[in-house]
């Protein structure tokens, strides 16, 4: 509860001067901070040097370096790996949108009340249990090889479609549970207030509970997105060429592993912005809730 403040005086117009004790405190804190920084830097350098020495002086290092860190192969394999990465990115973007939507629907189904909705609730619960249990690779193979095998007319042909469908089915199950946890975390008094105003159950969910629930679960959802980015490559099992597969092809031709290092580096580069964004969001939420400080 914040009481209304009188307008703040412009900075500098306060005639407060820190006491001698406070100045001493700040001096000690500064000195300690500098010392910590120096020790941190020194220990980092020492540790880094030791690791470097251990690695580069090991007898196998020249071979490993040639095998994993060859600049020539890196340059040569880069274009095809980048092309493969584009597939990863496209799959990730399209699937993520569908996963969020579908996960929300499933979560909504599980929180429906009333006896008439029982079949929907049961279906949603069964779906969640099934697809959280099945390993993703199995779902990909079953869908990608099994469904086309039925030879039903009108089914799409594309490998990426079945791989994407497998990703959507599997990830939506997890995302639905995340949404459900978010919905449950919204205090029941919010729902009571909404119902008291005359909003129906569906309206209360849509305008009051869900908006709050979704905001709360953004960090775990972003985590899922990072995970999806990597799993998007599993569709290569069905034959599509993603970044890792492209690296594998190059490696098999040359018997050199540098392409895998290149692919790994590209994936990490993709993930970093997302990870930093998640951190930033988390800090912003913390600040709003007034945590941090001296604790």
């Amino acid at each position, binding site marked *: 509860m914040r009481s209304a403040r009188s307008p703040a005086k412009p900075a500098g117009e306060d005639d407060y001067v820190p006491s001698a004790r406070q100045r001493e405190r700040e001096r000690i804190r500064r000195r*300690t901070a500098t010392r910590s920084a120096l020790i*941190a830097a020194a220990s980092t350098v020492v*540790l880094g040097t030791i690791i470097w020495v251990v690695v580069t002086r090991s*007898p196998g290092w020249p071979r490993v370096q040639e095998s994993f860190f060859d600049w020539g192969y890196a340059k040569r394999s880069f274009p095809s790996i980048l092309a493969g990465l584009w597939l990863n990115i496209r799959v990730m973007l399209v699937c993520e949108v569908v996963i969020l939507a579908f996960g929300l629907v499933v979560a909504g189904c599980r929180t429906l009340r009333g006896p008439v909705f029982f079949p929907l609730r049961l279906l949603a619960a069964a779906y969640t249990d099934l697809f959280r249990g099945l390993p993703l690779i199995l779902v990909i193979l079953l869908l990608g090889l099994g469904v086309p095998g039925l030879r039903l007319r009108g089914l799409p042909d594309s490998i990426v479609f079945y791989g994407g469908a497998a990703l959507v089915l599997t990830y939506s199950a997890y995302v639905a549970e995340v949404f459900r946890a978010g919905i449950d975390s919204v205090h029941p008094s919010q729902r009571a207030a909404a119902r008291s105003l005359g909003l129906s159950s569906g309206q209360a969910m849509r305008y009051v509970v869900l908006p709050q629930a979704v905001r709360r679960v953004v960090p775990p959802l972003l985590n899922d997105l990072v995970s999806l980015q990597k799993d998007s490559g599993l569709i290569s099992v069905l*034959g599509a060429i993603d970044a890792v597969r492209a690296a594998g092809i190059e490696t*098999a031709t040359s018997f050199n592993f540098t392409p895998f290092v290149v692919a790994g580096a590209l994936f990490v580069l993709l993930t970093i912005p997302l990870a930093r964004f998640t951190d930033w969001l988390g800090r912003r939420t913390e600040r709003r809730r007034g945590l941090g400080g001296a604790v």
Partner: protein
Amino acid sequence: MLRFTAPVTARQLRFVAALLGVALALTACAPEDQGASGSATTAADACAKDKLQLTTKGKLTIGTDKPAYEPWFSDDDPANGKGYESAVAYAVAEKLGFSRQEVAWTVAPFNTVIQPGPKKFDFDVNQVSITEERRRAVDFSSGYYVVSQAVIALKDSPIAGATSVAQLKDAKLGAAVGTTSYRAIVDQVKPSKQPAVFDNNDVAKAALRNGQLDGLVLDLPTAFYVTAAEIPDAKIVGQFPAAGANPEQFGLVLEKGSPLTACVSKAVDALRSGGDLKSLQDRWLSDSVGAPVLS
């Protein structure tokens, strides 16, 4: 963001000291180099059985992948001596002076064969084609089989009646990763649609059966086996013409600079000049003759 506002405590200093200690200990135990650079003499007695540097003393350790495919092996059991590569392996062992009981088989997935570092086998036999580029990373014996690539398709596939490579251009083709089958598609067919690349031929065969592939490229003996025993609905469309002056050959793979390379090559050469390779081919690969050559 890094913050250094906390003072360095005694506990933290102890931790850093422990870390440095561990790192220093690591430098002390530098791994020993096992493979001496090859300066094997070609004197006859350098290949005497008791002079060979083996991974396991007294036994010849041979590696291959799992599953071990027909017609190169039989029943996924390399030790039974059936199948062309199993037979050749035992023949080479015999030439080096090892009886069947003195041969041990080990599972060597493809990537472990080409990685730098000591190997768990003396040589590996797994339909690996010899290329100059690959020689930078591993040693090869002389070739023990001249291999052609072939295209198989379902009898109702659009390319089932193709007679030239050009007619394959618009087809959806597939191959296993790491094989020269894939290279044949990319280098000789130069298809308009991106080929599908699979971990191994199992998924590829399922995709072919489902109609998701118009054609699958395999080495000729495997193509014969698959169309005869595994997918009766498929037929061999044709084999690729030899690309380049030097025909592609399968070779045994050894660690780069292995002291055994010369001896193993000698053994293979002896088998070839003595007609053993031919008779083994007649026995195990007799079906793989007579596929039309694509123009």
